[in-house]
């Protein structure tokens, strides 16, 4: 019989990392080894995570598909389900169904330079694709990462940022909003789009991936366009409210486009065709 499409896998919270105030990363492992064996996903996809008794929440899969046996998600505590998740401890059980949605076309990007631009807690979808590309490092030319948060304290994945900073084959530019710096801060100060404009990565043979709050995306696209990036070479992800994740609950569509089925990954060219309902 076909599997019940609403039935989640049971996963064990194998590891909890405190990333920033109210932001945590969970590493989840399948309780059933057979399910772990059959599971696969591609970078860019998302899933429904649940606390039994509290409900489901949508997060992207924050780990790269090149690393098997577990999935990771990073979430901010904002409401009912995310609060219940925050109260869990290592060893507890959560529900996970997915993967859903489309993927970053990383095979098409082979031989190109990659520029990743992220703001705040929007680094998770980016972290997945960054590590996937770094795990296949020889397939790509220059890799640059721009990452900004409100304050130094709000930067997530501090450990990995350090790792990227130390890698000679990655250019990392970190920034915090004006006023968010500490005396020890050695990165940039300023909003993400401003820093991108200042550093001015070349658009030649380059793909840009932008994830962040709507205001950051809105202000970053024009900067990239000014630098010569074509809309087809700028990627982002949308986050409309979701329930089912597979095109039935009617919640996530932007015009005729379903973020859960056609997205969440879109190019700036595709976004330009959509009505302003995201």
């Amino acid at each position, binding site marked *: *019989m*076909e599997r*019940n*499409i*609403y*039935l*989640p896998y*049971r996963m064990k919270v194998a590891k909890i990392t405190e990333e920033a105030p109210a932001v945590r990363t969970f590493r989840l492992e399948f*309780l059933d080894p057979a399910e772990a064996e059959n599971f696969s996903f591609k970078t860019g996809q998302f899933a429904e995570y*649940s606390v*039994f*008794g*509290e*409900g*489901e929440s949508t997060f992207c899969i924050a780990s790269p598909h090149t690393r098997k046996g577990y999935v990771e998600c990073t979430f901010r505590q*904002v*409401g009912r389900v*995310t609060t219940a998740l925050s109260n869990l401890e290592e060893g*507890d*059980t959560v*529900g996970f169904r997915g993967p859903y949605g489309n993927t970053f076309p990383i095979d098409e990007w082979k031989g190109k330079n990659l520029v990743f631009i992220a703001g705040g807690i929007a680094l998770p979808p980016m972290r997945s694709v960054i590590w996937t590309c770094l795990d296949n490092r020889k397939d790509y030319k220059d890799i640059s990462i721009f990452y900004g948060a409100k304050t130094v304290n709000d930067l997530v994945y501090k450990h990995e940022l350090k790792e990227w900073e130390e890698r000679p084959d990655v250019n990392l530019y970190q920034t915090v909003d004006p006023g968010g710096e500490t005396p020890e801060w050695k990165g940039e100060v300023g909003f993400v789009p401003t820093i991108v404009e200042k550093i001015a990565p070349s658009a030649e043979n380059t793909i840009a991936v932008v994830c962040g709050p*709507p205001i950051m995306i809105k202000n970053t696209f024009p900067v990239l366009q000014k630098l010569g990036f074509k809309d087809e070479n700028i990627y982002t992800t949308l*986050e*409309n*409210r979701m*329930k*089912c994740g*597979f*095109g*039935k*609950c*009617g*919640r996530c*569509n*932007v*015009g*005729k486009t*379903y973020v859960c089925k056609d997205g969440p990954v879109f190019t700036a060219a595709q976004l330009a065709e959509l*009505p302003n*309902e*995201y």
Partner: protein
Amino acid sequence: MSKIKKLSKESFPLLIKKISETQHVYGPVSQGKRISYQRISSADELASDFIIPDMSAKSFVFPKIEKLFSYTKNKDGVEVQDINLDNIPHRVVVGIRPCDAAGMESLKAIFSWDPSDPIFETRLKRTTFIGLACNQADDYCFCTSLGGSPGDTKGSDILLTKTDTGDYIAEILTSKGEKIVTLAPDLFQDVEGDLQKEKFLANVPKRFDNSDLQNKINAAFNTDVFDEYAMRCMGCSACAFVCPICACFDIQDETKGSKGQRVRLWDSCGAKLFTLHTSGHNPRETQGARWRQRLMHKFSYMPERLEVRGCVGCGRCSRRCPVDMNIAESLNQLIIDN
């Protein structure tokens, strides 16, 4: 495979009785002013003189609350119990209106869009629809404006049309319909010649020309026709709940003590909270944007993505709207304007 038979007025109750021996039978029942699809054990419980049941028949395949699985929490973690599709009953709905039956095809398109929903599919497979053609209509009915008709066979397994003598013309339309006939083959008489079904159908005038509807509604997207029309809509969601095709849903957990279940519940795109992000941002901020979504979904997005419309013109949403929003009128206006 359509085959035409005659079912006399005396045979009809016998058929219901015969079916009830092995399956649960449902049909339109009158409860004071309300007509609703209810479980029946004999044909005399059926309402006779009515236009359309207040609620559509969608709950047979898409119940208001559908259990998706249950769970038990204990000190070692959580046990999950899947539902058993074998428990979904075989049922026969007799007297379903042609518009409701036609709506099943649109619902099917939604739920079978990859990945297909096995709960819905099983419910649909196990439900037999014996339709009853309409011999009366009201000003809200507009099936003919959308390609349907009071005698439309779409979605029915058997369609009955009551003639002036009280006997029925029975069109046997599917293998599920055939199965009903084999339960009591003697009740169905062969017929010769044309029984002129059309003579016994209600007259539903065309309210608008649908030939270019999809283009016209697309053209209206950036106009203020939706805002203007939806000014008085309160977002109560009644229109979605009575609609045979509206299928938007929510998923929630219901827990009592250590046990609980995850359920799927009817929801509505007209509700303000429907698309509200936790951040406070709402992609469909105004009631006009939500009314536009309702119409665009039914007349543009579904035709484009699923090749069916999301409306069969049953008129229920307009009959039930507390502030007299009228979908046919709204469509008519945007067809004229664009």
